């Protein structure tokens, strides 16, 4: 949980809030704005919140409430062991949801990613089988390339033939499930014996390495924030005062430290288990990459533009089909990563993989995190936060001994609440 609060600000505030904060340029002559007051900055932030850009505040608040609730019911909920467990359980949802964000940003949906992730897992498992004996990295690369190609295929059908993504990816859901059954055989399963692949979820960094990695990440994120905001300050654009920048960086560092401390606490029963699971790094890496892609590149800007107003984007000379297809490719690609993580967690791939439920959880996670179903609003971090919420509900209710039935109902209620917030925000903001 701690982990999430960290990439949140890093990925989020940096390209966004600061840029948004840029705001008040009003009509004052630019270079004269040497002195930035905290009030200017706060005013701009408030303007954003009021116009419906509350960002991740609701979901972070929800996460805190859920945590407090479960902790009061069962003091084990916030124990180090359970928190790490929760991160591991949530990783697949987070990754799938981060993929789904691309489709949702376009105002589309990708229903196939559950089984596409299964395909990713199967290809990896097949290629590293004794009889083929591929090295783990080659198997993973091929699996991800195939998943990306599936996205290109579906995206091409959607964009070039102009078919609704709902239908095309629903067909994908069925088709890739069929392909899975075909490869595995009815009720079949494919064990994974490769140590590296299994260690993605099962293995941990050493405590010292966990610290080292976290220091590097915090330093990189902090440098980004600082460079970005000080550049704005030096150019006379509205930016937070240096103190606020420092505070943000301190927040990122605190979140990083908390995460490492949780992960480095011994959580083993018989033998000590310490250190950050590799999968946490995978999630952070995907989060960082997609946040950069969406926030800092033309491609990302165009994805938002298409989701906001496809016609305007077309008139601006944006090649809609290409951007859309690329987005679907990234959705499937990310699903492939999720599938490999899932396979690693189970140390096998089997026909028990329920791609239908997975994709619905992924969509739910993205929306709970704050991504709009109507397109144009969303971030990679929403997938992570929403995935955490879903994992927390699942985990917390399991601790209380609730049945699967109850978990589904509660998850549904949280999803409904999130969609309600989304549509209310939408209504209020479209002044």
């Amino acid at each position, binding site marked *: 949980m701690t982990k999430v609060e960290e990439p949140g600000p890093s990925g989020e505030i940096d*390209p966004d809030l600061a840029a948004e904060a*840029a*705001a008040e340029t009003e009509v004052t002559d630019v270079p004269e704005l040497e002195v930035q007051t905290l009030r200017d900055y706060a005013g701009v932030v408030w303007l954003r919140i009021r116009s419906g850009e509350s960002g991740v505040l609701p979901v972070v608040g929800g996460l805190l409430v859920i945590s407090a609730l479960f902790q009061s019911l069962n003091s084990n909920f916030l124990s180090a062991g359970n928190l790490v467990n929760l991160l591991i359980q949530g990783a697949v949802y987070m990754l799938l949801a981060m993929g789904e964000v691309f489709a949702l940003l376009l105002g589309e949906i990708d229903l196939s990613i559950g089984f596409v992730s299964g395909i990713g897992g199967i290809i990896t498992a097949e290629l590293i089988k004794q009889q083929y004996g591929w090295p783990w990295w080659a198997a993973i690369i091929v699996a991800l390339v195939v998943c990306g190609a599936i996205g290109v295929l579906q995206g091409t059908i959607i964009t070039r033939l102009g078919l609704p993504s709902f239908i095309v990816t629903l067909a994908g859901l069925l088709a890739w499930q069929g392909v899975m059954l075909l490869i595995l055989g009815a009720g079949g399963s494919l064990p994974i014996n490769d140590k590296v692949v299994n260690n993605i979820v099962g293995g941990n960094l050493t405590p010292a390495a966990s610290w080292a990695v976290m220091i590097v990440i915090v330093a990189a994120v902090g440098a980004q924030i600082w460079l970005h905001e000080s550049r704005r300050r030096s150019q006379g654009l509205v930016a937070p005062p240096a103190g606020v920048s420092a505070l943000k960086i301190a927040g990122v560092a605190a979140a990083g430290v908390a995460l490492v401390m949780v992960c480095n606490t011994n959580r083993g029963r018989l033998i000590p288990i310490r250190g950050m699971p590799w999968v946490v790094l995978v999630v952070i890496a995907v989060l960082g990459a997609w946040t950069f892609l969406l926030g800092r590149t033309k491609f990302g800007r165009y994805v*938002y533009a298409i989701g906001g107003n496809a016609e305007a984007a077309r*008139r601006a000379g944006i090649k809609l089909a290409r951007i859309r297809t690329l987005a679907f490719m990234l959705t499937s690609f990310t699903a492939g990563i999720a599938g490999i993580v899932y396979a690693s967690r189970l140390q096998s791939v089997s026909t028990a993989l329920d791609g239908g439920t997975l994709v619905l959880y992924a969509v739910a996670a993205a929306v709970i995190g704050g991504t709009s179903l109507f397109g144009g609003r969303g971030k990679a971090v929403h997938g992570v936060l929403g995935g955490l919420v879903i994992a927390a509900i699942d985990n917390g209710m399991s601790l209380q001994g609730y049945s699967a039935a109850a978990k589904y109902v509660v998850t549904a209620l949280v999803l409904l609440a999130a969609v309600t917030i989304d549509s209310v925000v939408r209504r209020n903001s479209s002044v």
Partner: protein
Amino acid sequence: MTPTDGEPLLQLRGVSKSFGAVHALQDVSLDIDAGQVTALAGDNGAGKSVLIKCIAGIHTPDTGEILWKGGRVHIRTPRDAAALGIETVHQDLALCDNLDIVQNMFLGRERLRWEFTLDEEAMEKSAAKTLHSLAVTTVRSVRQPVKSLSGGQRQSVAIAKAVLWNSELVIMDEPTAALGVAQTAMVLSLVRTLADRGLAVLLVSHNMNDVFQVADRIAVLRLGRLVDLRPTRESDPQIVVDLMTTGTSTRTPQPAAPEATA
């Protein structure tokens, strides 16, 4: 009025365009000068939209030629038009609500740092400067999402977006449709500002008040033909309505429109 010497910025010569059996434009010849607001009036279906789309590169004329600064050009795509310096401000659908003002103004033409990442600071400064130069002062922040703007502000942003690209001809399609009185005044003054800065403006409007307030010349289309082109001061709203509906007018202009000084 600032009539320019020398050749017109844009010349249409005998432009025709048909869609199947429909002759949307027939032999239209029209000169558009820099520093002037040329209004394009006409009833629904008169061919106004087709004409501006031919200039903006959305349609290609069947026959006839287009001259830009005296040289013949082929405008096949909106990109071609933009490359020449022709920008169109559409009546609607031109901005992305979820993006902020800077993002909208640079959409499709983002500035990059190291050829890779978006150069937000440079874009923000340019956007602010352009808005400032056009005296668009009611916008609180250039980082405000467009959805939080009023109709007039949105139109102003759309116009500023066109100006940002050093365009020389700005085509505006019903820029004041759906705007309130104050907002309309704001947009019209912006239109005038553009012309006074030496840009050519082609204004499509149904609204006679708007036309007579800002236009230097009024061209009237009827059933795909250009039936009249005269300076605003030699016209009045009634004459234009006559021309739009019947193609001729025998009236003499009433100097009843004091706003027409422009």
